[in-house]
């Protein structure tokens, strides 16, 4: 009796299940880290893709912030339940690259699926971060931004400085900060992401190494090198500004954004992707300027590097599912989708065609300054120092840099001592990463 019932349940199950496996679209999982408006925009992209064809269905899921999403992916891989596509922030790039058994490089996925894939269609300084030294793309750049200088024009005017004052070099910024301070301004300059902007991008922009072995691109036996004279000079200058009340430190992440958007700070170094938030909240006249550089440093300004995330394809799935992955990645790279993403979010376009379309649409004319990040990234061909960073345990190394920079801002250490200490402590972590991934 019981056996009979069980058998009929199984039969019914098999009958119900079989049409799904035969006719339904191939389903793939996509885990990302976006909420709010960005989350809505991702959901819209997925919906558009699913509606555009009938063979494949992408299921997107939000898994927390960048760190949490990476952790969720790792935990899922250990339990053999990994998604097909995982969003990983740029800091996790070396971790993913080293996990050769856990990932399928994008160029292989595309080749195996027979999908059309032209690596040259992507903007060099964007794809460079996620490409091997011999030009093979490992993950698909998804959201990329680069640091720029945000200016409160009203604050400059109030201090008796022309709102169009030249802020192209740090020397000129210094003069403006002096005037702001003299006029009684409480917060002449603040920043977000201090390590990313004032050391990582700073080094690339001045064409000096952040780490040896081409910033880690040539191997895991790399060592940190950001305690050179140019970086020390910059950090020491910032430290002096902090002491004199010209630079206000708000926190390790993007806490300073609230101070700028609220109109309290005059100048703000932050990602170009801060655009959406600033446009929505700022009740003053603002402008975007290129990131300043130190005049007199040979090779500056080179190009800045990116921050953001890329999409990694995880291993261990069926080959027809990888066809679906290839189709989805191609869809994301298509010109219309990319141009829309770029215009909606302030993130960089990942393909040259999407940038061209945005220009042709007249978007840059209607929204002045939105092309500055693109120009900053693309006017010069990236060098070994400005292609990007590929360092293991980099999230922790950034934590160490944060700690040491805080010692400079509070006046406990001078820049040379702090950066030497950061390099020495970071190198220990790099050696550990090398040991784990040799």
């Amino acid at each position, binding site marked *: 009796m019981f056996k009979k019932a069980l058998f009929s349940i199984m039969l019914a199950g098999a009958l119900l299940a079989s049409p799904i496996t035969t006719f339904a679209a191939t389903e793939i999982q996509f885990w990302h880290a976006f909420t709010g408006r960005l989350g809505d925009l991702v959901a819209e992209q997925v919906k558009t893709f699913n509606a555009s064809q009938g063979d494949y269905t992408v299921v997107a899921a939000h898994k927390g912030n960048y760190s949490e999403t990476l952790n969720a992916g790792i935990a899922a891989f250990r339990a053999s339940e990994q998604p097909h596509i995982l969003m990983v922030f740029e800091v996790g790039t070396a*971790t993913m690259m080293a*996990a050769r058994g856990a990932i399928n490089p994008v160029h292989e996925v595309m080749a195996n699926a027979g999908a059309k894939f032209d690596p040259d269609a992507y903007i060099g300084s964007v794809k460079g971060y996620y490409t091997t030294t011999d030009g093979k793309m490992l993950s698909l750049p998804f959201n990329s931004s680069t640091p720029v200088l945000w200016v409160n024009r009203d604050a400059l005017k109030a201090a008796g400085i022309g709102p169009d004052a030249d802020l192209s070099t740090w020397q000129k910024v210094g003069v403006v900060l002096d005037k702001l301070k003299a006029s009684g301004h409480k917060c002449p300059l603040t920043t977000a992401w201090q390590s990313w902007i004032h050391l990582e991008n700073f080094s690339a922009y001045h064409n000096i190494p952040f780490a040896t072995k081409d910033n880690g691109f040539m191997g895991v036996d790399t060592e940190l090198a950001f305690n050179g004279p140019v970086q020390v000079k910059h950090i020491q200058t910032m430290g002096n500004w902090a002491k004199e009340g010209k630079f206000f430190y708000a926190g390790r992440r993007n*806490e300073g954004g609230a101070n700028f958007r609220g109109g309290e700070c005059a100048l703000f170094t932050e990602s170009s992707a801060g655009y959406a938030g600033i446009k929505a909240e700022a009740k003053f006249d603002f402008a975007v300027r290129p990131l300043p550089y130190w005049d007199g440093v040979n090779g500056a300004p080179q190009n800045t590097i990116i921050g953001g995330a890329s999409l990694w394809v995880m291993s261990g799935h069926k080959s027809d599912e990888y066809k679906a992955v290839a189709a989805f990645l191609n869809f994301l790279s298509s010109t219309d989708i990319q141009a829309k993403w770029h215009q909606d979010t302030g993130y960089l376009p990942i393909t040259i065609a999407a940038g061209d379309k945005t220009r042709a649409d007249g978007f840059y004319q209607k929204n002045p300054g939105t092309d500055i990040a693109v120009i900053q990234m693309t006017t010069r061909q990236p060098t070994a120092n400005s292609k990007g960073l590929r360092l293991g345990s980099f999230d922790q190394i950034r934590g160490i840099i944060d700690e040491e920079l805080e010692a400079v801002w*509070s006046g406990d250490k001078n820049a040379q001592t702090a950066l030497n200490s950061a390099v020495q402590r970071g190198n220990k972590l790099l050696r550990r990463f090398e040991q784990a991934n040799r």
Partner: protein
Amino acid sequence: MEKLVTFKGWLLPLALIFPQIVISAIFFFYPAGQAIWQSLFIPDPFGLSTKFVGLGNFEFLLTDEFYRASFLTTGIFSLLVTLVSMVPALFLAVMADRLIKGAGVYRTLLIWPYAVAPAIAGVLWLFMFNTRVGVVSWYLGQLGYDWNHVLNEAEAMGLVVVASGWGRVSYNFLFFFAALQAVPRSVIEAAAIDGASFWRRFFTIVLPLLSPTTFFLLVVNIVYAFFETFGVIHTITSGGPQQATTILVYKVFADGFVGQDLGSSAAQSVILLLLVGALTVVQFKFVEKRVHY
């Protein structure tokens, strides 16, 4: 003469403690064993390869002066959290014990903060002391004090201590309040007739009679400060400024779950396990001798 109740046979007692043994085995012995095992390896995050390093993880940690410094930070932090959560709790309990009207409302209100999760409590305190929009930091600014826990190490420590200790005041209050009710009235009344003042009665009679509760709370609160406070640290300071609030358990969390360094994280939790084990032994051996049951 002590009264002893004994079971006949051993099946029933075994059956009665069996659930507890199973729970301890699954949720304590198994993970602790795993941590000890993992602390001998450097694995890659994905579990694809793992390398035996013997005591290498411990050597890596103990030769790091910043790791060693966080022992001191943890000591200061735990001591302060214990004080901040126990002293006000005792004071409030004594006050509540003297209340005649409205004691129930007073008690209920005092218990509320215990229902707030540590990470949420962290966010609440962070909002109050936010350097830009915080209510408290604004008032301090009006008084001419420039509050900035983002760069000032002492202020950051003070803030995480208060945020961690605040919810525990309720918990400690409950225990102190119950213990106070058990203090025999006749002893206190006798002392009062002899002319002892309130504070004299408190220090010579009540406090010694509370010592078993105080001792229990001391152990429990130190364990809390050691293990359960990383949510508060994570939301308020992330261990900063510099390393001012990097306590041992926060580093276990950060290295393991943010940095993906599972070997080091496991080794750190083994060190923490030994440390708290040793601390508890010390407490039972030396402090308990001064407790009167």
